[in-house]
């Protein structure tokens, strides 16, 4: 069981999001912020497009030999004094993590940003077992206070405005002076920093995600901008790395190539502020570091994507560029998608992980504009993979009956050119006559979805093929 999904209610979620003025204002920041910065970063690096090819090839190679690289990685972690745990699903991952926390006698667990931890719902599980999880990424900290899921994979609180964060801080940080000034974002940041500093020092276990797991060295790599990841993994006695199987890369050289496209695609930075490598527990000569080092590697349905057309999705390095460039994401935000992963990458990945019967709306709610694919650093053909989901749905009769019967009727005529010409000629004649006065329709039966927001332009009347036959072929004969 993974975290609860509202993906089946995507349409209702979307309608609510579209009517949420505050959210709509916040979504403006996604459009403005990320797109120009990525564009500038890409333009400044002449080899950017070639690097995207290299990034795709590295991930493809790794996925082809994933079993070997997983074993090699495990061996390296063990030899550096760490432990590797393989979790088939979310339940197993939660139990493994809870077990490690209990062994450490943990009361407080600090957490770096990790989408896998959202996927397995670890916070809830720890709380239910008397352990306090504390998110230390500012955005994650804010949404933890609000009891929300991230709405974006790298900017989890992008759906919020500063005034909402101020309200949350006043609600939760009751030990501080009620009259303090929090009108500036930097004041919010300073307050969060002060509160989190105490938590860092009190933590018994630190959990981080991983952007890459390096088979060659047994190293896990995280990229952050706040430095919270370092404090999470260095200060407590026990460090747990929680990552999914597709985070593997063969070598440090491969990881560094991928790092060159990751931050540029995500935030437009050349590199994130911190790029942190950790390999096993603290050695005797190390100045700091955890005494215990655990890696929990989650499958949760991913291995069944290998060898299928959805294997390409496992190249994803979670930069968020696809959602930053998606008109649907811009319109409804991340929560409407109803599970952990929003936007185009979520529209492909979510059906793989929780089932297309639950997440079927997501790959359908796309115009196939292709902007996601055009910016993906590992060149995942996202529209094609969404279409593959639509094909699976069609095969399994999950496509809505109205759509199916509409397609059938249309297909019947489209397969019969002579009948089609006859029927469309008659239909367009009638429609043109009916729309002659205004040149458009404000309402049409069978097209209410269309006419709810826009007029339907009336046809000119005679079809092209009828007129062509009359003017050209008639004249020639």
């Amino acid at each position, binding site marked *: 069981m993974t975290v609860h999904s509202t993906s089946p209610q995507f349409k209702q979620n979307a309608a609510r999001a579209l009517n949420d003025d505050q959210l709509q204002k916040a979504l403006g920041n996604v459009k403005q912020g990320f797109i120009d910065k990525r564009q500038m970063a890409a333009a400044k690096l002449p080899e950017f497009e070639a690097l995207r090819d290299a990034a795709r090839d590295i991930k493809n190679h790794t996925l082809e030999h994933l079993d070997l690289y997983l074993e090699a990685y495990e061996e390296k972690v063990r030899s550096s004094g760490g432990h590797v745990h393989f979790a088939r699903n979310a339940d197993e991952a939660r139990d493994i993590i809870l077990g490690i926390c209990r062994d450490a006698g943990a009361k407080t667990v600090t957490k770096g940003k990790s989408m896998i931890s959202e996927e397995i719902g670890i916070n809830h599980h720890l709380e239910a077992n008397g352990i306090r999880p504390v998110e230390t990424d500012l955005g994650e900290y804010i949404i933890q206070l609000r009891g929300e899921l991230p709405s974006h994979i790298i900017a989890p609180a992008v759906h919020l405005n500063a005034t909402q964060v101020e309200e949350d801080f006043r609600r939760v940080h009751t030990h501080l002076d009620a009259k303090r000034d929090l009108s500036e974002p930097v004041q919010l940041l300073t307050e969060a920093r002060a509160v989190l500093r105490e938590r860092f020092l009190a933590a018994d276990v630190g959990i981080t995600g991983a952007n890459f797991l390096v088979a060659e060295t047994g190293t896990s790599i995280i990229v952050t901008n706040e430095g919270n990841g370092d404090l999470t993994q260095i200060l407590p006695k026990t460090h747990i790395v929680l990552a999914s199987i597709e985070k593997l890369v063969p070598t440090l050289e491969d990881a560094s190539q991928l790092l060159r496209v990751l931050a540029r695609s995500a935030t437009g930075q050349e590199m994130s502020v911190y790029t942190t490598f950790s390999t096993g527990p603290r050695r005797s000569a190390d100045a700091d570091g955890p005494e215990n080092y655990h890696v929990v590697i989650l499958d949760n349905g991913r291995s069944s994507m290998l060898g299928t057309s959805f294997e390409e999705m496992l190249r994803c390095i979670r930069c968020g560029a696809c959602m930053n460039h998606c008109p649907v994401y*811009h319109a409804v935000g991340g929560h409407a998608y109803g599970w952990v992963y929003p936007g185009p990458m979520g529209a492909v990945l979510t059906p793989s992980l929780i089932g297309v019967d639950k997440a079927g709306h997501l790959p359908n709610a796309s115009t*196939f504009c292709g902007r996601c694919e055009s910016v993906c650093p590992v060149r995942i053909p996202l529209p094609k993979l969404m279409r593959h989901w639509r094909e699976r749905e069609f095969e399994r009769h999950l496509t809505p009956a109205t759509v199916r019967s509409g397609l059938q009727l249309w297909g019947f005529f489209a397969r019969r050119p002579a009948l089609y010409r006859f029927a469309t000629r008659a239909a367009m004649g009638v429609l043109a006559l009916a729309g002659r006065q205004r040149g458009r329709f404000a309402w049409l039966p069978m097209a209410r979805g269309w006419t709810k927001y826009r007029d339907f332009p009336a046809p000119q009347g005679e079809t092209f093929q009828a007129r062509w036959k009359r003017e050209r072929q008639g004249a020639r004969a």
Partner: protein
Amino acid sequence: MSVLPLQGRPANPRVGLFVTCLVDLMRPSVGFAAVKLLEDAGCIVDVPVQTCCGQPAYNSGDRGTTRDLAMQVIDAFHGYDYVVAPSGSCAGTIRVHYPELFEEDPNWRAKADALAARTYELTSFLVDVLGVTRVDASFDGPVTYHDSCSGLRELGVQTQPRRLLGSVEGLSLVEMKDSDVCCGFGGTFAVKYSDISGAIVDAKARNVEEAHAPTLLAGDLGCLMNMAGKLTRDGRPIQVRHVAEVLAGMTDEPPIGVAKAPAVK
């Protein structure tokens, strides 16, 4: 059969016009504008009997119907030097997606590949294949141009229509903000997810209006009907036309979604 290079192509290539189902049914004047542009450029244009490229079925996951329609198109258009469509979306379906439909059928795959290699979007065919640099047309006033997604991202149609528009006498091109961002049409998406589609086309309509050009052009009738429908619904007095109409100097028909003026007696 491979693409004919610029030098090696016949002086009067035989072009099969893939008129597209929307142009056929809704706005035949676009098809005749395409014919004029092609004939002016020396092509011999023919229009074989046709229905639809199959895109609505393809994007709805109905591969069987798509394949049937693709075979129909492949058969109907197999004898021409080139196939040209006044649409990046339909040309993209034939050029990019038909070969994908027959991955397990080498016989049809070869035919699909051959057709794909000869198929072009109208403005890209005129500029990239025929080397047309100017058209014989005039148009009064500024226009703004929307890049339709499939043409732009599947076929690289971006500079070609702009270059041709630049040669239209009296026309000036004013770029809108985010001209390369989707209008929210997406075929059946506009009906299935009408709330989201409505929000996306609303943002597009604002950008169109802020360009302060009285005319909006694009190369795909689906997008044009979506944007025109939104602009008329909101009472924004912007005339919407297919780019081929302006390039061919055939703007006698009223713009999309506008009634014919009553005949003066």
